[in-house]
C-alpha cells in the first residue's frame, strides 16, 4: 500500500516537462532526427537580421523582437555560445559526476592564456603560432591542468571540493593580475590572431562581422555535445551516475571512483579550455579582468537552473542566463528607461535560483533520474527531522 503511494509521488515529481519529453522520445527516430536538423538550421540562422523581420510582431524598423539593440546581435550570440560551451563542460563535472566545482572558470582562463601566449607577437614566449595550432595545445594544457588540480582535491568530498576549486579559480585570476612577467599583468596580452580562412582575399574572421565566430562556436558546441552525449551513454557514463548517487555504493560495485571522477574533471576542464581558446581568438586581447569570479558562479548557476545532468538543460540554462540580460538591456532603452537590467543579472539569478531550489530543484529540463534523486533526498531529509 505505502509502496504504491511513494511510487506515484516519484512519477508526479517530474512535472509537465517530462510529459512533453517522453512524448518526444516516443516519436519515430526519423522524425526526431528531422526535428534536430531543423533546430540546428534555426540556430545557424539566428544572427541574420532578416530573420527577425518575419517574426510578425509589428514594432517598426527601430525595434525587432528578440534582436539585441545595444550590442551587436552576432556578438551577443557568440558570447552566449562561448558561455553555453562552458556550461556543457561544467555539466560533465557537476551534472554527470556530481562534483561541485566552483572554480571551473579557471580552466577557461588557462585555455585563453595558453592561446594568447603561443600566438601573440606581443607575448614574451615569442613563438607566434597560428591560432589553429594553439587550440589543441590549449585543450591539452587544460586537460593536464584538470588532472593536476583533481589529483589531490578529488579525494575531498562535497563542500570541501567546492572551496578548494573556488580558491583555484581566484588564484589563477590573481596570478594573472599580479604577474608582470609572462602574463603581463593588467596590461594583458594584445594582438592575439583570429581563426584562419579567407574568401576573395578578405579574412572570414575579421573584426567587423561577428557572425563567422558564432557559426564556428556553434559548430564546436554541436561536436562537443555529440562526444559528451556518447560518453554519458557509455560505461563511463553509468559509472558517473553511480558515483553521483552514492559514492560508497559505487565503490563496492567495483567502480574505480577516483579515476572516473578525475576523468570527469579533466574532460570538463578540456571543454572549458576550448571555450577559452575560442574567446581569445574572438577578442584578440585578454587580461585578468576577462575572468571574474562572478562568471565562475554564473556558469554553475546556469547549469543548475537548466537542469544539471542533462545536456539540453545545461544548454538552455546557459543560453537564457547570458542572452536574456543582453536582450533586456536593449528593451529597457527602447522603452525609454534609464536603468540597465543586465546590471542586476547576478541579483536576479540569485533570486531565481532560490525559487528553483524550493520548487523545482532538478532544473528547467531535468532527466527523470535526477528528479528521482532529488525526491529521494527530500524523503531522507524529512525522515531525519
Amino acid at each position: 500500500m505505502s509502496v504504491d503511494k511513494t511510487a506515484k509521488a516519484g512519477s508526479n515529481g517530474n512535472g509537465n516537462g517530462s510529459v512533453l519529453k517522453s512524448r518526444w522520445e516516443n516519436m519515430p527516430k526519423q522524425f526526431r532526427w528531422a526535428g534536430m536538423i531543423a533546430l540546428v538550421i534555426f540556430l545557424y540562422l539566428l544572427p541574420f537580421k532578416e530573420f527577425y523581420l518575419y517574426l510578425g510582431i509589428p514594432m517598426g524598423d527601430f525595434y525587432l523582437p528578440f534582436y539585441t539593440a545595444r550590442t551587436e546581435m552576432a556578438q551577443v550570440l557568440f558570447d552566449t555560445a562561448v558561455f553555453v560551451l562552458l556550461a556543457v563542460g561544467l555539466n560533465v563535472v557537476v551534472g554527470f559526476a556530481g562534483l561541485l566545482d566552483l572554480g571551473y572558470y579557471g580552466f577557461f582562463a588557462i585555455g585563453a592564456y595558453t592561446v594568447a601566449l603561443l600566438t601573440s607577437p606581443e607575448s614574451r614566449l615569442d613563438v607566434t603560432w597560428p591560432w589553429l595550432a594553439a587550440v589543441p595545445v590549449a585543450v591539452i594544457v587544460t586537460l593536464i591542468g584538470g588532472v593536476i588540480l583533481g589529483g589531490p582535491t578529488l579525494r575531498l568530498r562535497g563542500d570541501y571540493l567546492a572551496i578548494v576549486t573556488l580558491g583555484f579559480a581566484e588564484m589563477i585570476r590573481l596570478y594573472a593580475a599580479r604577474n608582470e612577467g609572462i602574463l603581463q599583468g593588467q596590461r594583458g596580452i594584445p594582438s592575439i590572431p583570429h581563426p584562419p580562412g579567407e574568401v576573395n582575399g578578405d579574412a572570414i574572421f575579421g573584426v567587423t562581422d561577428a557572425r563567422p565566430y558564432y557559426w564556428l562556436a556553434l559548430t564546436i558546441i554541436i561536436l562537443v555535445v555529440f562526444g559528451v552525449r556518447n560518453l554519458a551513454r557509455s560505461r563511463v557514463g553509468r559509472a558517473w551516475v553511480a558515483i553521483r548517487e552514492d559514492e560508497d555504493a559505487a565503490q563496492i560495485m567495483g567502480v574505480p571512483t577516483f579515476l572516473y571522477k578525475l576523468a570527469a574533471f579533466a574532460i570538463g576542464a578540456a571543454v572549458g579550455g576550448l571555450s577559452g581558446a575560442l574567446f581569445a581568438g574572438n577578442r584578440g586581447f585578454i587580461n585578468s579582468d576577462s575572468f571574474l569570479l562572478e562568471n565562475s558562479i554564473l556558469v554553475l548557476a546556469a547549469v543548475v537552473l537548466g537542469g544539471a545532468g542533462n545536456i539540453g538543460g545545461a544548454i538552455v540554462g546557459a543560453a537564457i542566463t547570458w542572452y536574456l540580460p543582453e536582450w533586456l538591456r536593449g528593451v529597457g532603452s527602447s522603452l525609454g528607461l534609464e536603468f540597465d537590467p543586465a546590471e542586476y543579472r547576478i541579483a536576479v539569478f540569485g533570486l531565481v535560483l532560490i525559487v528553483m531550489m524550493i520548487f523545482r530543484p532538478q532544473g528547467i529540463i531535468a532527466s527523470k533520474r535526477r528528479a528521482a534523486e532529488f525526491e529521494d533526498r527530500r524523503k531522507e531529509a524529512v525522515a531525519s527531522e
Partner: protein
Amino acid sequence: MLLEIKDLTLEYGRIEALHGISLEVEQGEIVALIGANGAGKTTTMRAISGLRPVAKGSIVFDGQDITKLRADKRVILGVGQSPEGRGVFPGMSVMENLEIGAYTRRDKAGIAEDLERCFALFPRLLERRKQAGGTLSGGEQQMLAVGRALMTRPKLLLLDEPSMGLAPMLIQQIFEIITEINSQGTTVLVVEQNAQQALSRAHRAYVLETGSIVKSGTGQELLNDPSVKDAYLGVA
C-alpha cells in the same frame, strides 16, 4: 580459510574504533557478527570491503593480503557487500541497479544467469524492475541491495544489518533467503543487531563490544550463553 582478519585496528581521527580484532570465516560458512550500536560492526565491514583505511593489522582474503587494496579491486577478487542503509542508487531503476552490480564482469552468459537467480530469490524485484530504486519500500530496497551484491558474483557476501527497519515478517523472510544463498555456495558474513535471527542462522558467531571481540562460538552456543542472552536476546 576464505577470510582471515588479524589484530585489526582502525581509527576515526584520534579515536580508536577497533582495538585489534581478529576473526576468521571458512569457505561455505554463515558467520554472524553481533553487538550493540556503536560496537564497531559497520566499521569492521567497511574495513573488509575497503571503504575505510586500516591503521594496523591485516586482512587476508582467499590467500591474498588485501589490507591495502582499493575497494573496487576487492570486488573483482570476490568481496561483495550490501552496505549499511542499503545504498540503493535512487535514480536508477531496479534493473539498472542490478546491472551496476555486474560492472566489473564481462561474461554475458554468467551475468544473465545471475540475474535470473536474483529474480528467483526475489520475485518482487522482477515485478518492480523498471521502478526507480528510490521509490521502493524499505524491504524491497534491502532485497535490491542483497541482489545487487550477488550480481558481483562474490565468494564472500558481506551483509550489513539486513534486518534494519524491516517488519518482523520481512526479517524472517530475508534470513531465509540468506540461508538459501549460503546453501547455493556463497559464504556469508552478516552483521546484525537482531541477534536472535542471526545466531539461529549462523554456523559461527562473534560478539563485538566497543571495538573488541569479547566472545565467539557456534551460533547455538552463543544462543544458550547466559551473558549473551542477557545483553542481546532480551531474555532475563
